[in-house]
């Protein structure tokens, strides 16, 4: 039976979830309360990253749930060398990439799904042009190469530092820098009509 969580404990979108060492310790001890705190703190962020990378809400929800269950199962092996959040982003990125590479999932399906995400959630109060621009941006993101897309999602949409991205994706820092730069340049080109 599902249990309703206290609204007062919910984390608002955009909040940075704290990397509390006591939370990690409590998770290692297997305290149910700690796992609940973790899910509440990171649910929107993890779901959002998965959504921006995968472009499908159903897929994103499945991946986000799997991320938390994996943490629940293996937190005792987490040595604390990296931040808890970095570990979460690493799992999320890996699961998203696996899902994107899964047989039967075409690139086009992801792009179409991302377009639906953009079109289906217009920001109220914005002008038509701004709405179009955002939709175009989401489409452009969807058309990016997967490797570039993940970097730009983590950096520009979710504000991770270069070092965090490098740790999560297990990439050299320079690779992260160059992928991000190329992704931004590509997006600029794709949005060319809005800049004239």
């Amino acid at each position, binding site marked *: 039976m599902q249990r309703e969580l206290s609204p007062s404990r919910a984390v608002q979108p955009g909040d940075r979830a704290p990397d509390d060492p006591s939370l990690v310790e409590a998770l290692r001890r297997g305290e149910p309360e700690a796992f609940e705190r973790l899910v509440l703190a990171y649910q929107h962020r993890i779901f959002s990253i998965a959504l921006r990378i995968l472009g499908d809400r159903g897929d994103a929800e499945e991946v986000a*749930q799997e991320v938390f269950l994996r943490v629940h199962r293996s937190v005792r092996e987490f040595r604390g060398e990296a931040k808890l959040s970095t570990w979460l982003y690493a799992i999320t990125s890996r699961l998203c990439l696996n899902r994107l590479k899964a047989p039967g999932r075409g690139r086009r399906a992801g792009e179409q799904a991302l377009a639906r995400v953009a079109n289906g959630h217009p920001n109220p109060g914005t002008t038509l042009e701004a709405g179009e621009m955002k939709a175009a941006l*989401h489409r452009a993101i969807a058309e990016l190469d997967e490797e570039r897309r993940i970097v730009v999602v983590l950096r520009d949409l979710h504000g991770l530092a270069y070092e965090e991205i490098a740790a999560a994706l297990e990439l050299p820092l320079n690779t992260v820098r160059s992928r991000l730069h190329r992704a931004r*340049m590509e997006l600029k080109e794709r949005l060319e009509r809005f800049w004239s």
Partner: protein
Amino acid sequence: MNCHETRDLFSAKADDLLTTEQRAALDGHLQGCADCSREWERFRQTVSLLHSVQEGRAPAGFASRVIEAARREPWHRRLLRGVFLPLHVRLPLEATALVLVATVAIFLYRQTPELQRAAEAPRSGVVAPTSEAPAKSADLEQAQGYGQTAAAPQAPAPAEERQGALQEAKERDQFARKQEAAPAPAEPPAAAGRRDAARELQKPAAPQRSELKGAARAQGPFHLMGLLRPMSPATLDTQLNDLVKQAGGILVRDADRVGPGSIVEVVIPRDAYPRLEAGLRQIGDFTIETRAKAFPGQVRIGLRIAQ
């Protein structure tokens, strides 16, 4: 700085990661290059647009579903997690379990005499009859002669000695069956040995003489049984006592004073037996009634004093 180098630094500029020198060079180029300046403005707007995208919200009830799913983790995963606990949890648990098991084992051992006997049997069965070392004190000889564990501190006997000891024990047992005064025990020799050894282990390290006497009688089997007709019964006790002492043995009487009709037990080192026999023949008429084929290191002699 050319246009290509300038555009390569756009991301670093947008993220404010340029050094002072790089920033100065880039800004200088942008002021003098309209194309790059226009490109930078578009690049900046693109990044700004990306930053304006709001974080998506997880669907309603998502957290509850995740927490519920974690609670319903399959049994085999829970089991595996339990088996492969991290060391900092597993080690104290295992140490505690070990202490508990050891405590229970010691408690059971102390409460169960059968277990104690079973644990002591191998020691007494092998070591006791193999004592070949010359006696250093009467007490030590006594203990060794009665097949007890006083020989435990000695080095383990070689295989031949062990075999010889077993043979001796066998012969002694056969000899004992023939004794009139000491009937053979009904139980197997090995069992008797274990029982004797167990009984002896419970004794103090330096047993009293009276206890040794009792133990000697309880043993039953003698390596030699003889009849002595003393020439002078009045001085027999003193003569016999002196003789045994000189032979390096001990004398166990069945009464305060040895006299006609007594049965005494003499325990001496095997090497001292000829001297004892010669002395007995000087005391009186000594007749050997039964004798083992071979003597062990400590020879137990039953001596009947004729009426």
